C-alpha cells in the first residue's frame, strides 16, 4: 500500500511548549532506572553504606571472633580494646563486636520477612481492589481499614504466645500490619491507570484480566512500590529492635534492641556498650529513610525547581529597539525569535524572525499546525512564556510601548486591562472552589480598581450581553454547575470587562461543539464591533479563520510563511505550505463515492 510520508515527522525542530517539556522527560527516561538512581549522590551513598553493612553481616560466620551467645565470665564488662574483644564484652561476658555482626543479620532477616509479606499482601490486594468491580473494591477496602485500626506493636506483644517468641514469626505478622500502606499506594495508582485508553485497548484485544494487570498495570506502579519498600524495611528493623529492647521475644537472638537494652542496664558501669548498637541501628534506619527519599526524588522527579517570579521574560541583550512604528498599528512584532534550551543546553529556536502588525480594531488570525510556534508568539505578547524560554531577538511594541524587557509587575498591569486573554480550555481556567461571579468581580477590580458594587453590576450586565440567559444565576454558580460553552462565555465576559484594546484568543473554540463554536464566534465578532478592540486569534482551524478574521498569518516551523487579507490567502495562496494546508481541508462537497466492499467482506 502506498502511503506518503507523515509530514509531522519532520517538524521536530519547532516543538511546542509541551513537546519541549516531554522531550526533556524523555531524554531522562531513556536511561535505565538503576543508572538514574546511582547518579543521585544521596542514593549512591546510602546504597553503598547499606551494601557494606549487610555484606559484613553476610560474612559474619567468617569474621566474627565469637558466637553471639558465647559467654566468658572472666570477660564480664570487659572494656573497649580488650584483645579478642575489640569493642569489649557485655554484662554476661559476650563479645559485643560479634553480637553486633549477628544483629545485622537479624535486622536483615526482619526487614526481608516484613517487607516481603507486606508487598505480597499489599500489592495483590491493591491490584485486585483497584482493578475489579465495586463490590470487590469495598470488601478489600473494608478489610484493610480494619487492619489499620489494629494497634501494631501492642498486637505483636499480645501474640507472643502464638509466635513462641520467634522474631521471624513476629515479623511475618508485622508484614500484614505494614500491608495497608502498600495496598493504598497500589490501589490508588491502579484506579488511575485502569481507565487509561491503552488498558481499554488491551481489553478489546482480548487480554485476560491477569495479563492486563501483570503487563500494563504493574509496570506503572513499580516505582512507587520500590520507594515504599525502602521505608518499610526501615520500620520493620525499628519495630523488631523495639520489641527486643522491651525484652519481648526470645532472648537467645542477638539483636540491636537486646544489645541496647543490655547496654542501658550497664550504663553507669560501661557507657560505651550502649553506644555501638545504637549507632549501627541509627545508621541503617537513617540510610533506609534517606534512600527512600532519594528514590522518590529520582524516580518521581519531585525535586521542586526554583522559579524567578518578578524578573519577567528572559530577553538576551541585543534586542533591537528601533523607534520606527506604524502610525495606526496597535501591536507591532518585529523579527521576534524565541528559543528553548535543549537537552544539551544549546538553544533551539522555536520562533524565528516573526514580523506582524495588528491595527486597532483589526482581527488577525494566526494559523498553523501544532509546533508551528503560533501559541509561543501569542504568549510572548502576553508576557507569559515559560521561564526557561529565551527571547533571542526582536521587539514587541504595543500601543507604542516596548513590551520586551518589562518586568512582571509592569506586564501584569497591562494584562487584564489593556491586553486580555481567552484560553482554549475554559473549564480549567476557572477556579472550581469559587463562584463564577466572585472570580469575575475580583479580576475586574484588580484591573480597574472599581468599587465592588459597581464591578458586580458591570459583570452582570456583561454576562447578559455575552448571551447568558440568567446572568444572576450564573453569577452565583460554581464552575462545575455550568457547561463548557457557558464557561467560555464567562471567560469572554471576564476578558472584555475592562475594555481591553487587544484581545488574544488561543484556540477559543477548539474544545467546544460546532453549534456552540458558531455562537461563540458570533459573540466575538459582535463584541469586537462594539468595543472596537483588536483581536489576535490563534487557531489551527481554517473554517474558524474564514468565518471571523479579516487578516491571516500562516505559520510553519516557527516562521510566518504568508500574511495577508483573508480573501487573498484563501483565494490565491502564494506559499506552497499554505496551499498544502488548504488542500488538506476535507472539502464540503467531497463525499465518499465508492460502494461498500460487501462482496469481499465474507471472504477476508
Amino acid at each position, binding site marked *: 500500500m502506498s502511503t506518503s510520508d507523515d509530514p509531522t515527522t519532520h517538524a521536530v525542530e519547532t516543538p511546542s511548549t509541551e513537546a519541549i517539556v516531554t522531550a526533556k522527560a524523555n531524554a531522562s527516561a531513556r536511561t535505565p532506572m538503576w543508572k538514574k538512581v546511582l547518579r543521585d549522590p544521596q542514593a549512591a551513598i546510602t546504597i553503598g553504606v547499606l551494601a557494606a553493612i549487610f555484606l559484613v553481616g553476610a560474612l559474619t560466620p567468617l569474621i566474627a571472633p565469637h558466637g553471639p551467645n558465647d559467654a566468658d565470665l572472666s570477660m564480664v564488662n570487659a572494656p573497649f580494646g580488650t584483645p579478642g574483644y575489640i569493642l569489649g564484652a557485655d554484662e554476661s561476658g559476650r563479645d559485643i563486636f560479634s553480637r553486633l555482626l549477628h544483629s545485622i543479620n537479624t535486622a536483615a532477616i526482619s526487614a526481608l520477612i516484613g517487607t516481603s509479606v507486606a508487598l505480597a499482601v499489599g500489592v495483590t490486594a491493591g491490584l485486585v481492589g483497584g482493578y475489579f468491580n465495586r463490590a470487590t473494591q469495598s470488601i478489600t477496602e473494608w478489610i484493610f481499614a480494619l487492619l489499620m485500626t489494629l494497634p501494631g506493636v501492642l498486637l505483636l506483644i499480645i501474640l507472643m504466645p502464638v509466635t513462641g517468641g520467634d522474631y521471624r514469626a513476629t515479623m511475618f505478622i508485622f508484614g500484614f500490619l505494614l500491608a495497608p500502606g502498600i495496598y493504598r499506594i497500589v490501589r490508588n495508582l491502579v484506579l488511575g491507570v485502569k481507565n487509561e485508553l491503552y488498558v481499554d485497548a488491551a481489553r478489546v484485544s482480548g487480554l485476560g484480566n491477569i495479563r492486563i494487570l501483570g503487563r500494563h498495570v504493574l*509496570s506503572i506502579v513499580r516505582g512507587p512500590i520500590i520507594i515504599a519498600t525502602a521505608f518499610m524495611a526501615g520500620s520493620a528493623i525499628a519495630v523488631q529492635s523495639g520489641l527486643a529492647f522491651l525484652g519481648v521475644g526470645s532472648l537467645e537472638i542477638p539483636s540491636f534492641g537486646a544489645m541496647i537494652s543490655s547496654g542501658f542496664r550497664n550504663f553507669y558501669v560501661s557507657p560505651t556498650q550502649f553506644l555501638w548498637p545504637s549507632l549501627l541501628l541509627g545508621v541503617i534506619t537513617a540510610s533506609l529513610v534517606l534512600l527512600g527519599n532519594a528514590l522518590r526524588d529520582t524516580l518521581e522527579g519531585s525535586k521542586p525547581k526554583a522559579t524567578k517570579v518578578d524578573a519577567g521574560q528572559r530577553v538576551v541583550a541585543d534586542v533591537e529597539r528601533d523607534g520606527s512604528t506604524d502610525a495606526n498599528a496597535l501591536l507591532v512584532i518585529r523579527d521576534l525569535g524565541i528559543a528553548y534550551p535543549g537537552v544539551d543546553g544549546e538553544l533551539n529556536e522555536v520562533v524565528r524572525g516573526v514580523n506582524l502588525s495588528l491595527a486597532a480594531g483589526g482581527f488577525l488570525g494566526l494559523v498553523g499546525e501544532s509546533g508551528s510556534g503560533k501559541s509561543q508568539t501569542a504568549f510572548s505578547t502576553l508576557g507569559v512564556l515559560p521561564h526557561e524560554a529565551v527571547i533571542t531577538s526582536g521587539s514587541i511594541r504595543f500601543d507604542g510601548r516596548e513590551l520586551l524587557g518589562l518586568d512582571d509587575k509592569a506586564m501584569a498591569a497591562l494584562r487584564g486591562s489593556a491586553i486580555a486573554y481567552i484560553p482554549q480550555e475554559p473549564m480549567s481556567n476557572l477556579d472550581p472552589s469559587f463562584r463564577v461571579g466572585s472570580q469575575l468581580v475580583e479580576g475586574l477590580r484588580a484591573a480597574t480598581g472599581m468599587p465592588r458594587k459597581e464591578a458586580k453590576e458591570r459583570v452582570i450586565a456583561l454576562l447578559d450581553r455575552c448571551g447568558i440567559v440568567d446572568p444572576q444565576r450564573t453569577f452565583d454558580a460554581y464552575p462545575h454547575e455550568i457547561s463548557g460553552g457557558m464557561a467560555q462565555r464567562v471567560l469572554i465576559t471576564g476578558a472584555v470587562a475592562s475594555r481591553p484594546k487587544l484581545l488574544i484568543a488561543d484556540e477559543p473554540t477548539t474544545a467546544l461543539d460546532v453549534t456552540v463554536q458558531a455562537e461563540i464566534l458570533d459573540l466575538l465578532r459582535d463584541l469586537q464591533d462594539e468595543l472596537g478592540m483588536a483581536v489576535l486569534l490563534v487557531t489551527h482551524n481554517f473554517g474558524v479563520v474564514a468565518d471571523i478574521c479579516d487578516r491571516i498569518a500562516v505559520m510553519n516551523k516557527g516562521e510566518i510563511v504568508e500574511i495577508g487579507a483573508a480573501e487573498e490567502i484563501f483565494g490565491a495562496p502564494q506559499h506552497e505550505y499554505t496551499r498544502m494546508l488548504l488542500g488538506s481541508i476535507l472539502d464540503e462537497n467531497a463525499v465518499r463515492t465508492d460502494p461498500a466492499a460487501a462482496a469481499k467482506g465474507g471472504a477476508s
Partner: protein
Amino acid sequence: MSLLEVEELRVSYPGKGFRAKPVEVLHGISLDVGHGETLGLVGESGSGKTTIGRAVLGLVRPSGGSIRFAGQEISGLHGRARRGVASHIQVVFQDPYTSLNPSMTIGDILAEPLVVHGATGRDARSRVRTLLDQVGLPTDAIDRLPREFSGGQRQRVAIARAFAPGPKVIVCDEPVSALDLSTQALVLDLFVDIQRETGVSYLFVSHDLGVVRHISHRVAVLYRGDLVETGDAATVTSTPEHPYTERLLLASPVADPARQREKREKRKQLLAADT
C-alpha cells in the same frame, strides 16, 4: 443480515450519590453496519456517540437492547466468551498519546494481541513487520517506544494494532480529531485504503462532519442519546431532514470567507425563524 446489528440499545450510568437514580445516556438506539461498510456516527459532546462504540466493544454494559455480531448476541458476553469475539471487533481510540502503553515497544504492543490469540513469537514478529509496512511505518519502529513518534505516527501504530488480529469490524472513536490537518487527511486515506483492501467495516464516531463525510457510506446523527437521522452520507450531509442535522451542518464553518458568510447568514435566518 448485516454484520453488526444494534437494536434498541439502552445504556445507563449509575447516578451520583446514595440511591440516586441511574442516568440513561442512550434511549434505544438501533443501527447496523454491513460488510465492508463505514457507518459514520455524528453528534456533539454528550450525545452518546462514544458510548455506543464502547458498548459494541464490551467496555460498558448495556441496560437494555441487543448487539449482534454476525448473528450472534454479544452484549451479555463475559470473560472467555467475550474474548472469543475480540479478534473480530477492534478499536482505534481518539488519543494516540494515551492509547499506547508508554513502557512497551511498538513491536510488543503490536505482537500482544497476536500472541494472546495463539500466534507463536516468530509468526507474530513477521506479522508485525507486515502490519508496520501496511500502515506506512519503517520496520525499525519495532524496537522503539511510543514517545519517539509523532501523533500521526502513533495513530498509525494504533491502527496497526487494531488490524493485527484481522478483525471484521473496527470501532473508530474520533481517530483523527487529535491530529493536525495535513496528518488527518493522510490517516483518513489510510483508513479508506485498508478498507478497500481487507473489506473491514468501520463504525466511525466523530464530531466533525467533514471527516465523517469523507469516509462514510452512511451517516447516523445522534442527539442527546437518540438517533435523529440515518441515511446515505451524501443525502444526510447535504439535504438533511431533521432540524438538528441542519443546524449542525450550518454551524460547521467552511474554509472560504465568502461561502462562510453566506452560510452564517443562512444559519442566522434559521435561528431567527425558530424563535
